């Protein structure tokens, strides 16, 4: 088993929470893990990404080699395309459909979504609205993670445990909200594939 994942979004959107949950789940599954994060200056509203590598064999490089990523998980549609050159041939791209427009020259959303739709394997999910319907806009990142889960080849229970570990101190209702968000994302992908 080997999964090289690129997480992409804008600073403050919750990339690191997704990374932490996958990472914790991977350790729970006794997998080897390397996860390179972005801290510091670019966190302030700039583009952020994380390289996440899971394997049943030791992982050498903290960075994914170009053309080797199995998946891009993005919280923002334009950001989902920033690292598209990193994808392997049969890779998946899973992205939120809601743009985060904090720059003047943001491209036409239609062009972005058309390009994504042209990729052989992609999921475009309106995570913001799904999360809002569940009662917490902040859980959009968990909806997107849920949408990616069917391609991760890992037991969903590992992710429930990881959510408990990471959000536990915020109270039981926060944990349940995130588990529900994860399930909503999962169900969306299953209905599309």
């Amino acid at each position, binding site marked *: 088993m080997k999964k090289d994942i690129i997480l992409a979004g804008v600073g403050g959107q919750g990339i690191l929470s997704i990374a932490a949950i996958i990472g914790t789940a991977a350790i729970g599954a006794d997998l080897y893990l390397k996860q*390179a994060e972005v*801290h510091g200056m670019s966190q302030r509203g700039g583009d952020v990404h994380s*390289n996440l590598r899971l394997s049943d064999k030791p*992982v050498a490089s*903290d960075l994914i080699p*170009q*053309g080797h990523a199995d998946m891009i998980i993005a919280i923002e549609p334009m950001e989902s395309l920033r690292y*598209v050159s990193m994808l392997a041939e049969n890779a998946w791209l899973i992205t939120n459909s809601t743009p985060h427009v904090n720059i003047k020259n943001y491209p036409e959303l239609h062009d*972005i979504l058309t390009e994504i739709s042209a990729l052989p394997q992609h999921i475009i999910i309106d995570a913001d609205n799904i999360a809002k319907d569940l009662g917490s806009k902040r859980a959009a990142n968990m909806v997107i993670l849920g949408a990616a889960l069917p391609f991760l080849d890992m037991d969903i229970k590992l992710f429930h445990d990881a959510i408990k570990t990471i959000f536990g101190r915020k109270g039981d209702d926060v944990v349940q909200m995130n588990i529900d968000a994860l399930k909503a994302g999962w169900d969306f992908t299953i209905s599309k594939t």
Partner: protein
Amino acid sequence: MYKIPLLGDEAIAQGAIDAGVSAVYAYPGTPSTEITEYVLRSKEAREGKIIASWTSNEKTAMESAMGTSYIGKRGMVCMKHVGLNVAADAFLNSAITGANGGLIVIAADDPSMHSSQNEQDSRFFGNFAMIPMLEPSNQQEAYDMIHYGYELSEKFEIPVLMRITTRLAHSRAGVTRKEMREQNALKMPKIANQFILLPGNARRRYKMLLDTQDAFTAESESSVFNEYIDAEEKYLGIIACGISYNYLVENYPDHKTPFPVLKIGQYPLPRKLIEKMYNECDEILVLEEGYPLVEESLRGFMNNGKTIKGRLDGSIPRDGELNPNIVANALGIPHFKGRESSKNVVGRPPSLCKGCPHIYSYNALTEALEKYARGRVFADIGCYTLGALEPFEAINTCVDMGASITMARGAADAGLVPAVAVIGDSTFTHSGMTGLLDAILGEAPITVMILDNGTTAMTGGQDSNAFGKIEDICIGLGMDKKHIHVLDPIQKHHDKNMAVIKKELEYNGVSVIIPRRECIQTLAAKIRAEKRKVKLATQ
């Protein structure tokens, strides 16, 4: 044993806690910040009464850790690479005093300048000071090397420099812990004058340092962190320093290379192992993050030996961090180049947060400066450096910590009047105070804006040593109270704030204007924590 997922920075922190460190001092700086943050959060560190403290700057941090070492306890000091410039006086002299309790200096380099103004290579400082150096290739090594580094430091009574780079600092992997070791008991230096660097004593101690160099090399030659991995093909030998080893083996199945590899994790360079590779292989490729330090020393000035490949001959780009693809190219390994990049992606530079008080400080300043020719705002290092970008384009310089006030003073002295300095609260106590004293004594016609958001915001909101002290400091340095103004940087006070700045720009002396409002990020975090507390209490 159970593995815990740790950033490289966190592995260093946990390593120090487990190796019996007594005190950790640091000034925040990407990518080193998370080391000290981890110790500050650690329950074990609290229970062990380990001191963890944000200091005013890297020099005061270094000296405090030297004090820890002086009384026989284990000390650690952490900084980003450019912080070592600030600490350099103490650092280089610590090689002459030597250590008593183990002393480890962590310098986190930032090749590719993800969050820095240069990509200087701290290994030069290690060589400069002539002390042993460690460079981990992964998180487990970072953890293990702290234990080893303290033994090394105490064995030779010498500080040890550990150099890491961004990618290791900010990458997470499973780490297995060792047993916790007790902290050292208080034990004064055996030689009473060890730390007195009067010339007569300093000369003696410097000779001791010179005489120990061969022993440092011998230690490197037998170190587990310098591994010679032999292989059949001898037309190439590869020296891989620190994390570059990972990028190398990533390119080979089961991580086995067909050529001999010398994996370097400890300096000074292991001479015997390098000689073995040089004698047995036709050519040598050097892989190292940062500057071509090893490559240059192998080539020598005359470069008349075997072919040495690396950053200097173009096999590897001269600047920027390494990755598996760069190494594959250097080795001529074909690799899948991936898809075309998207044409629907534009740059998304970082920007000031919505509602950030700096926005209103800049709006007022820029408007107050309208009647003057542009180019007179000397800024500094922090979130407010983002004022250089659109839509503000409000500042004209950003060089090093504290350079705003001093450069403004120099420019004003030489005829640019008015000149403005923009500096954050934490940067002001880091390196701005001495410059302000110079300006006051020199009666320089400058306006100093100290943007006070009550925190060290850029690195994630660490405590600011300037908190609640700025006016008192300025008055203590000799500022005329009449020319110190505190503003509330929000939209509704724009006109009033601008009028104050305008007036002070016309004053022919030093003015200090302090726009004061809490960082929106730390404020939001406080509100979230408070809500959580209320919620848990009512559950």
